[in-house]
């Protein structure tokens, strides 16, 4: 029988290689916060209360552009909708947990914690599921908190001509590429990206670009899928 602590450590270990992506992402999120006039406390607030990197970075940029608050929060919701898929997919493994453990599991549900845990559950039915998940999720959480604070402390000292604001779209690019699995997701990407650019260039007010692009991009993916282009 595997012990609780060995499964927990396995989770920490499985998340290890992913920390190499989380750490620079966290630094970028911290730097971005202070560049947009937010405090180190705000950066830590985003990382601890929201704990969803892509949405944090997008919200920080929208706040810097003085977008309406409903758009800032609405954009975060749209970006984080994908975790509903993870929630549905991992829910059967968590059905016997206490309410408190379910709350903790929900709080820690990131792309990375989901990916390593669901892979392990598929391979090994003996795993203490919550221990493994907690090991991965909590270690990712810790690195995220530390690196965003480090980025925020560093951020105000960076010379603007080095263009560190460009790191944010580069992080999104690194998140985008692995989602391109077939023609339908390619269509979502192309249409979503071009619609967002069109909305920005046309000067549509209220920074609606991400929300509009998400709706049109998803419809494009569904259209290509229904045409049988899902190859």
């Amino acid at each position, binding site marked *: 029988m595997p012990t609780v602590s060995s499964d927990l450590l396995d989770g920490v270990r499985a998340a290890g290689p992913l920390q*190499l992506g989380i750490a620079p*992402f966290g630094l*970028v999120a911290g730097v971005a916060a202070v560049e*947009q*006039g*937010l405090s180190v406390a705000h950066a830590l607030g985003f990382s601890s*209360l*929201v704990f969803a990197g892509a949405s944090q970075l997008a*919200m920080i940029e929208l706040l*810097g*552009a003085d977008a309406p*608050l409903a758009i*800032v929060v609405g954009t*975060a*919701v*749209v*970006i*984080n*909708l*994908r*975790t509903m*898929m*993870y*929630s*549905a997919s991992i829910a*059967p493994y*968590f*059905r016997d947990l206490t309410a408190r453990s*379910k709350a903790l599991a*929900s*709080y820690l549900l990131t792309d990375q914690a989901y990916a390593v845990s669901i892979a392990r559950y598929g391979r090994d039915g003996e795993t203490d599921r919550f221990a493994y998940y907690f090991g991965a999720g909590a270690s990712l959480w810790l690195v995220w908190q530390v690196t965003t604070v480090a980025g925020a402390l560093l951020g105000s000292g960076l010379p603007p001509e080095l263009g560190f604001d*460009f*790191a*944010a*779209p*580069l*992080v*999104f*690019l690194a*998140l*985008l*590429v*692995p*989602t391109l699995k077939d023609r*339908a997701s*390619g269509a*979502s*990407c192309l249409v979503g990206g*071009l619609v*967002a*650019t069109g909305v*920005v*260039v046309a*000067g549509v007010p209220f920074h609606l*670009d*991400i929300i509009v*692009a*998400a709706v049109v991009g*998803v419809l*494009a993916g569904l259209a290509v899928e229904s045409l049988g282009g899902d190859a």
Partner: protein
Amino acid sequence: MPTGYDSATVWLVIALAGVLTFAIRGSFIYLFGRIDDVPPAVESALEYVPAAVFAALVFPPLLAPAGDLAVSVGNEKLVAGALAALAAWYTERVLATILVGMGALWVLRFVV
């Protein structure tokens, strides 16, 4: 550009986004047993959210960095972004993507 919102308003945004994000993440973990599966139509739609959303965050700063369409080799962010996209494709690593993109931007800005 520094935000025009005051500190308390930023905290309100953080709190709202935190609660809503938690609710999305907890949705099926809590409802399992009452709703065992995502309705197929919703599942299909959710599948395309990441590609559409991440593209919406990538394309505008590369294609129109100053708010106007700038599709030319003179657009340093577009060129650096294209090289970073190749790095992302071949390595699938965040760090490599950032290093190639920032490195290319600095070469274009300070060397070329």
